């Protein structure tokens, strides 16, 4: 990761950036290209987990009635997820899911946020594996909750058979099955992955594009500078996307849990 500056200065960075740029060299063993056991991405995920555990433990170790600043931040995050996501989407039954939603929200927010932190500068979520696994957890969770709440037969009957006359049911049941049990996990994972992937790609294009132009022709220097100014602007846009995607992922998970708990009218 420290070799990057040299590469850029020598104008050797491959200009259009490719998918290969998302596969960073291994850390352990150092610098190896085909070993993916412990890369920067792995390190970032563990750092995110560590930071979240330590932050929430530390800020709630000695809770006070008049909260300290750290406690206030932790309580605001939890309060936001609890009131504006869990209770808003699910209702009073949602409070018991608030801890999981908060963990999910914070984890996605922090791992996304690595995309614009200097020296991290890539989000683990720009690899489909991480969003896919988070989506798998949400998928198993809402089905499990639904089955436990309604019982196996009633849950599937409720989620597959909409309230409609019998003669259009053959058309509706495949759609219900497809949209509830196939599309949901897929769209959750792809939405987060694609946003983070595209964001990283966009920043790469504008940064590397600047270097490519300046090394191709010195007269293009002003355009290069414009390109880097755009990088700064896009970083702010990235920040918006980062928060939005963490929120959307959590809201949709809450919405699926709500759907699994819903009673038939």
């Amino acid at each position, binding site marked *: 990761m420290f070799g990057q500056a040299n590469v850029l200065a020598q104008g050797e960075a491959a200009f259009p950036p490719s998918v290969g740029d998302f596969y960073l060299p291994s850390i352990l063993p150092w610098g190896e290209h085909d070993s993916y056991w412990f890369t920067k991405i792995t390190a970032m995920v563990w750092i995110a987990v560590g930071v979240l555990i330590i932050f929430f433990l530390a800020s709630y170790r000695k809770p006070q009635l008049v909260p300290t600043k750290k406690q206030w931040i932790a309580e605001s995050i939890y309060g936001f997820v609890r009131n504006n996501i869990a209770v808003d989407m699910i209702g009073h039954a949602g409070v018991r899911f608030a801890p999981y939603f908060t963990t999910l929200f914070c984890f996605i927010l922090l791992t996304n946020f690595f995309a614009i932190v200097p020296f991290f500068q890539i989000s683990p979520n720009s690899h489909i594996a991480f969003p896919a696994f988070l989506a798998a957890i949400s998928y198993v969770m809402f089905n499990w909750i639904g089955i436990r709440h309604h019982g196996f037969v009633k849950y599937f009957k409720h989620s597959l058979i*909409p309230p409609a006359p019998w003669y259009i049911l053959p058309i509706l049941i495949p759609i219900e099955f497809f949209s509830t049990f196939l599309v949901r996990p897929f769209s959750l994972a792809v939405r987060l992955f694609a946003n983070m992937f595209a964001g990283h790609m966009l920043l790469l294009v504008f940064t590397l594009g600047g270097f490519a132009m300046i090394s191709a022709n010195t007269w293009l220097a002003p355009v290069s500078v414009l390109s880097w100014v755009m990088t700064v602007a896009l970083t702010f846009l990235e920040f918006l996307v980062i928060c939005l995607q963490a929120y959307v992922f959590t809201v949709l998970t809450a919405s699926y849990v709500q759907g699994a708990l819903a009673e038939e009218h």
Partner: protein
Amino acid sequence: MAGDQTPRPSGGPDEPPTGAGQGWTALSYLIAGMLVWGFIGWLVDKWLDTGGIATGIGVVLGMAGGIVLVVRRLGTPT
């Protein structure tokens, strides 16, 4: 009344999903409808060599199905 939990206050789990969730649900029904029946139509096409007619019928049928689902699932409960 804080202790009175048995008759659920509004916003309980029997309410239809709110705002964003409802929007995503509607969108996914409409798209899923076209995809599922479009795909089934395409399979029929391959099978009977109808040259795209079955796919077209499937997509239209799926659209109709998606709309019916949105109305039935998310419309005002009667």
